[in-house]
């Protein structure tokens, strides 16, 4: 039986899973479609991590260093194009820069992650393709990574900034009825960073509910209000139009119970998570069940968060649905353990019995 575990995706989930596999004496084959490792935090230019404001760059570098190991075979610019076989003996076809190869692996960890919701979609009325000053959370991260925050249209710092929460999430009209979990925390974090960079700039967050669980509440939400004067206004925005060279947003201030129209210099859309193209493609190729939103289904949750519908195939990270980094690295470890246990022929290695 082949000893190797295939890890599909070189983002935080995949990198941590591969490292964990090697750390317990296993062998990993890590496949990444881009030519750099790091996944979405790298591609979307994450600056500081929620909630401790640690450097994303440093975190990613540590993860990358973790896979510099003779037990881990890293293939960049490579994708999985076909798969056959079953647990203990999968045959996968990889398409890479030198052509196609076929590999035999004993187990697979899917770590193909998410993509950000496209706010330029036809269901949205936020003008993402009309107004450069309407940006997304990742667009803001990119600027913050360079320690700046400006209006894309003028290059000047904005006098005010608004965040709009739940863009592309919690929406029956769109079909993405779920909550994307991290955007409240990430928006609050970015709001703090903007306030630090631009002390004269007013920052608002327009929300339906503020969701920062556990210690994110006291480490991010309260400091945002108390130390950094971020204004949280309960009420969501229906549309953004241009006016006097700025952006006009129409919402309701539900606390005060009245319609609200404000001119803003920059508006940041807190875009949610959707399954990435890779997640959709790989699910098809591997024959793994997806939930109604296209994420990898977890038949055993909540007690088993890594087993998929196919024996021998596990999942880690946002490929299974909205996850924060804490969830992701936790799942990665669990998936690594289960995968290695599988290839060593141990049916219930190190975890409760899967049902």
């Amino acid at each position, binding site marked *: 039986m082949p000893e190797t575990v295939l890890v599909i995706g070189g983002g935080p989930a995949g990198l941590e899973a591969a490292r964990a596999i090697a750390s317990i004496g296993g062998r990993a084959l890590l496949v990444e479609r881009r030519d750099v490792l790091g996944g979405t935090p790298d591609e979307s230019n994450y600056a500081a991590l929620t909630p401790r404001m640690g450097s994303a760059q440093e975190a990613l570098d540590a993860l990358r260093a973790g896979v510099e190991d003779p037990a881990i075979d890293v293939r960049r610019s490579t994708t999985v194009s076909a798969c056959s076989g079953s647990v203990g003996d999968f045959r996968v076809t990889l398409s890479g820069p030198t052509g196609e190869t076929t590999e035999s692996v004993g187990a697979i960890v899917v770590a193909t992650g998410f*993509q950000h919701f*496209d706010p*330029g*979609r*036809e*269901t*949205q*009325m*936020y*003008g*993402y*393709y*009309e107004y*450069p000053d309407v940006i997304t959370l990742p667009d803001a991260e990119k600027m913050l990574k360079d320690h700046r925050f400006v209006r*894309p*249209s*003028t*290059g000047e710092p904005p006098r005010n900034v608004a965040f709009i929460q739940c863009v592309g999430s919690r929406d029956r*009209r*769109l*079909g993405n009825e779920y909550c994307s979990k991290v955007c409240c925390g990430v928006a609050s974090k970015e709001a703090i960073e903007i306030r630090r960079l631009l002390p004269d700039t007013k920052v608002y967050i327009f929300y339906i509910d503020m969701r920062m669980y556990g210690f994110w509440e006291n480490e991010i939400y309260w400091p945002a209000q108390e130390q950094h004067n971020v204004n949280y206004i309960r009420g969501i925005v*229906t*549309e953004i*139009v*241009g*006016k*006097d060279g700025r952006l*006009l947003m*129409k919402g309701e201030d539900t606390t005060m119970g009245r319609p609200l129209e404000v001119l803003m210099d920059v508006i940041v859309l807190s875009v949610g998570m959707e399954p990435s*193209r890779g997640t*959709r493609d790989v699910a098809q190729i591997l024959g793994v069940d997806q939930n109604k939103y296209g994420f990898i289904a977890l038949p055993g949750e909540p007690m088993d968060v890594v087993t998929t519908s196919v024996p021998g195939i596990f999942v880690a990270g946002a490929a299974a649905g909205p996850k924060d980094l804490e969830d992701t690295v936790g799942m990665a470890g669990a998936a690594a353990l289960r995968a290695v246990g599988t290839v060593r022929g141990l049916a219930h290695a190190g975890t409760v019995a899967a049902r």
Partner: protein
Amino acid sequence: MPIPLTVLETRREARDDRGPAAPPTEDVREKVFELEAAGEWLVQRVPDPWIGVTTKYGRTKKIPVARTWHHKSCGQCGHIPGYSTSIFWLIRKLGLDYNDPRDQTSCTAWNYYASATSNQGAQAAVAMRNFGAAYESGYFPMIHCGTSYGHYKEVREELVHSAELRDEVRRICDKLGKPFVMPEEIVHYSEWVYALRDEFAKRRVLDLSGIDVTVHPACHYHKLVVEDAIYDPDVYGGQRTAVVSAVVTALGANVKDYSTWFDCCGFGFRHILVQRDFTRSFATLRKIEVMQEEANPDVVLTHDTGCVTTLDQSQFAARAHDRKVGVPVMSEAQFAALAMGAHPYRVAQLHWHNTEYRPLLEKMGIDWRERWREFEDDLARLKGDPKAFLTWEDADA
């Protein structure tokens, strides 16, 4: 500082990378055909030739070019007859076959939204009776009013999802001796104008490059059953409905944006009749004044009866309060007809409109004095013969 095009362009490219998104809703037309297969009703097919246009989630909608049965609007025919006349004139100009029926009732939705002195069954029965009449004629229904269109889209949803409602309405149609028919598509005339806009552009005789236009989209066109409305990735990035705006651009005039584009006109259905302070205030303060301040248009174009009425008629009272009003309002059908050389009085019937439109006609290069003299001659002739009417031949003389 000019807007860096690369920002928007970069975003559009990234959109292509992520691949197409699946439409979030079911396609009601599939259900319509399933019900036909189950023997629940007949489906009237869109006749050939038809033009495919894209709706909100990227689906194709069939717009019939000809052989259309004209579901008229009572507000248009009653108060703004130039609107209906222009629609017919456009069809005739293209030499297309159409039917202007007498076997047609109002959709009754104005009454329904105003007073609710009706119910689900009656509204659905009225719709299906009209669709039955169209089917009997062999021509495919095309809806003139935005509210009729939105309402009929809703009726379709309700009929598709309720066997009980279908049974009730089928019984009524049987008693009336009308066939129980659902058309393959519910088509608004502005969708037909959009589909044929290049044909109209080809026949344009006036230079409209100096005409600034603000467009008002009818709420009931794009907010009722949102997925069935025309969207075009080249028009507002596919995030606002493309009808009317695309036609204005095709005709060579300039579409100007304003910050209350998405707002209702304030028609209110009952408000414009019995609570008019709301309608005239809303239309003036939220639409006309904003358009004037931000876009300074030569004309406001829209594609619905109620919207033309509201925006045109509300400006008079506002002048008494020294509000910044005074921009003419008409339908895109009238505007397109004028662009193609139609008579402003015999066809566009602008003498029924309230807000001053003559400076606009001058700017468009139309000698309205001469045209009015011609029309006055027509009127004198008609006065002398109580049995005479203005004919289509007279209209183009």
